[in-house]
């Protein structure tokens, strides 16, 4: 009985003494600055300008501004000699501790990416609360401009940017890339890194902006070395096997066809027997979802076959343009050819590699595309 009383007393004491309010430093939610997006630019004076888009915690529905607008988020811009120092400035200003675990996107200014992106990213690799899968993008102008753009009332800008970046695989126009994949490519001296370039465009009927997908930024030795447009980005997505759905307009006999990719697989075969040509095989399956003819004419087997061949040419052309711009012109090994060579023929790689383990030699590339038309919509084929 005595033991039980002691145990009960000990348990009761712990309820009052171990409430996590004393010695253990716990930051309450209202003391947190919940960050939705971060933008990093190099300042002209050599330091960093960090823009933070944070949830406005003034009231549950947002902060009532003097002009009557309700803002869900607030943008804070600070400068410092390092990203950490700039963020400390934000803490001092708001009196809150930044929480990065909710951040959706990390925007790097275009000029910053051109100088050295590693410097701008290092803080986010080490910071304890940063998410590994936060999306990374380069902005057309400065990151501050990008994050300060208004996308409408009661709209979280970071969410709009995140949705645009995530749409890539289904629309085939942008390479949404999480931080860990981007850094993996940057760290690997046998691969080229890439990430989306986005900008803003003013809407015609309002003061708001919308997201504009510019294309893809290509990096070589941690510096932005070139940008490919959205058409070439589509080709790039085929090359890196990241297309899950995309609409392909094809002009052929009788009108414009729209083909929707339902499945696409890419295989990259390294050179054999001492050769130097990589073979890229793209196998795509499409549905014909629209046939813009003048008189509702039915599709014939021959027409479908012509469209199929035209589609193969279309994909091959886009992938070819992407590889030319990225690999040959911007020196960005997006298909990781050097690494594939390292894997398939290590001794040959060792013999030809530079001292730091990188690879300068350029390979020839052959692209082979196979398109299969799965369905032609609800309509039957016309038999002649």
């Amino acid at each position, binding site marked *: 009985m005595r033991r039980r009383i002691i145990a009960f007393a000990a348990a009761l004491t712990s309820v009052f003494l171990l409430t996590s309010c004393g010695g253990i430093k716990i930051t309450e939610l209202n003391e947190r600055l919940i960050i939705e997006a971060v933008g990093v630019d190099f300042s002209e004076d050599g330091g960093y300008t960090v823009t933070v888009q944070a949830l406005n915690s003034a009231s549950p529905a947002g902060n009532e501004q003097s002009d009557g607008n309700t803002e869900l988020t607030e943008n804070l811009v600070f400068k410092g000699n390092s990203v950490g120092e700039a963020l400390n400035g934000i803490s001092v200003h708001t009196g809150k501790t930044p929480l990065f675990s909710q951040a959706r996107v990390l925007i790097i200014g275009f000029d910053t990416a051109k100088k050295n992106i590693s410097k701008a990213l290092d803080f986010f690799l080490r910071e*304890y609360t940063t998410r*590994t899968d936060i999306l990374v993008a380069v902005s057309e102008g400065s990151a501050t401009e990008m994050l300060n753009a208004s996308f409408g009332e009661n709209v979280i800008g970071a969410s709009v940017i995140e949705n645009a970046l995530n749409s890539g695989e289904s629309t085939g126009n942008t390479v949404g890339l999480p931080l*860990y994949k981007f850094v993996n490519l940057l760290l690997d001296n046998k691969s080229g890194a890439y990430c989306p370039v986005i900008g803003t465009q003013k809407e015609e009927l309002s003061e708001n902006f919308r997201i504009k997908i510019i294309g893809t930024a290509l990096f070589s030795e941690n510096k932005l070395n070139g940008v490919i447009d959205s058409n070439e980005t589509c080709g790039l997505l085929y090359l890196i096997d990241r297309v899950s759905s995309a609409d392909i307009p094809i002009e052929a006999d009788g009108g414009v066809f729209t083909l929707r990719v339902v499945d696409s697989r890419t295989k990259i075969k390294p050179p054999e027997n001492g050769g130097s040509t990589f073979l890229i095989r793209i196998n795509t399956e499409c549905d014909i979802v629209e046939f813009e003819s003048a008189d509702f004419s039915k599709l014939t087997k021959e027409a479908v076959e012509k469209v199929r061949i035209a589609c193969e040419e279309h994909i091959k052309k886009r992938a070819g343009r992407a590889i030319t711009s990225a690999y040959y012109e911007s020196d960005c090994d997006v298909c990781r050819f050097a690494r594939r060579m*390292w894997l398939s023929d*290590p001794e040959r790689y060792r013999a030809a590699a530079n001292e730091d383990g990188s690879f300068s030699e350029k390979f020839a590339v052959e692209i082979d595309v196979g398109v299969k038309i799965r369905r032609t919509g609800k309509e039957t084929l016309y038999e002649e």
Partner: protein
Amino acid sequence: MKGKISVFQFFAIVFVCRITEFFTYIAPRESTVLPTDRVFVVIFFLVFCVLALIPSVTVANRFGKISVPALAKSSSDTLGKITACIYIAAFIWSAAESVSRFELFISTVMFPDTDINMITALLLLAAAFAAAKGTESVGRSSVTVCAVLAFSFIFIILTSVSEFDAVNFSPMLYNGIGDTLRDGFSSASRTWEVLFFATMLPHVNGSATKSAAAWLTVFSAVTLIGFFVIDGVTGQYGDRQMFKLYTLTVLAKLGILERFDDVLIGIWVLCELIKSSFCMLAASKSFEDGFGKKAPKYFYLTASGAVFAVFTAAARSVGQFTEIAGSVPAKTAFYICALLVPSAAATASTLSKRKAVTDLA
């Protein structure tokens, strides 16, 4: 049988204890092992662990499931006491090393700005309480934790596979075999769970060889799969992260289900609790076998205090911890406990029996 656990429960305990180390795995500082070569690291780890296990399992098979301290005591009281003291120190170090690693994990990814000595102290107190409840209680809890662990691990692996990229791997043994061998040796020399086979087998119903084989095979397979997926998914990014498996758990998601890291942290705390409590339990059994009397009333509390003291000294910084845990004295101490002590106890026992027979003749 009262006070005894089944082979499966023993397997669950040792597996849970070891898997905690894998969860909070920190690559050796000097390691330059490439992703694919981790397969060989695991193979070498397996070989060194088998070597380290041979003396303890041989003692159990040859001398009829007797613990090493009891075997040493059968030849000399002093030898029994010395052996017990060596094992008690080893178990306290093992628990402290594990808690230190866990503290580094917690203070790196959960509460970076917080001194978590209080949490650690409470964890050790709870472990002392669990140890006081006996082998069977720890055995039963381990089976439950093992099941939850298996489910979570499979889930994380399956949900991460979609992000797998085989190009993240490397050619086999591109940098030679030296580093791979050293990493395998280094990992095996931190496998203090081997000592459970030297002290706890008398409390297990079933074959010592089978339990050792099952433990090593399953643990190696899980480690292999774990590393394979981590390297395939995270590539060089994961290579730079202090806690690789945690990085993978952050990425695992299925539909609206995501952030499994928080769930897993809870399970890891349970694993840590089981490891600490079983270390204390093994230390108390070593005391009883080596000294030939029941462990003092406050043995577990004293043991948890000792673990806390060693932890406080060892886990001040990541650098200090990895240097101490991977130091030559620590490795030497492990192989002395795993190889030399059981062999010496067996030799002493055989010699004393021979002497007794000769004296009788």
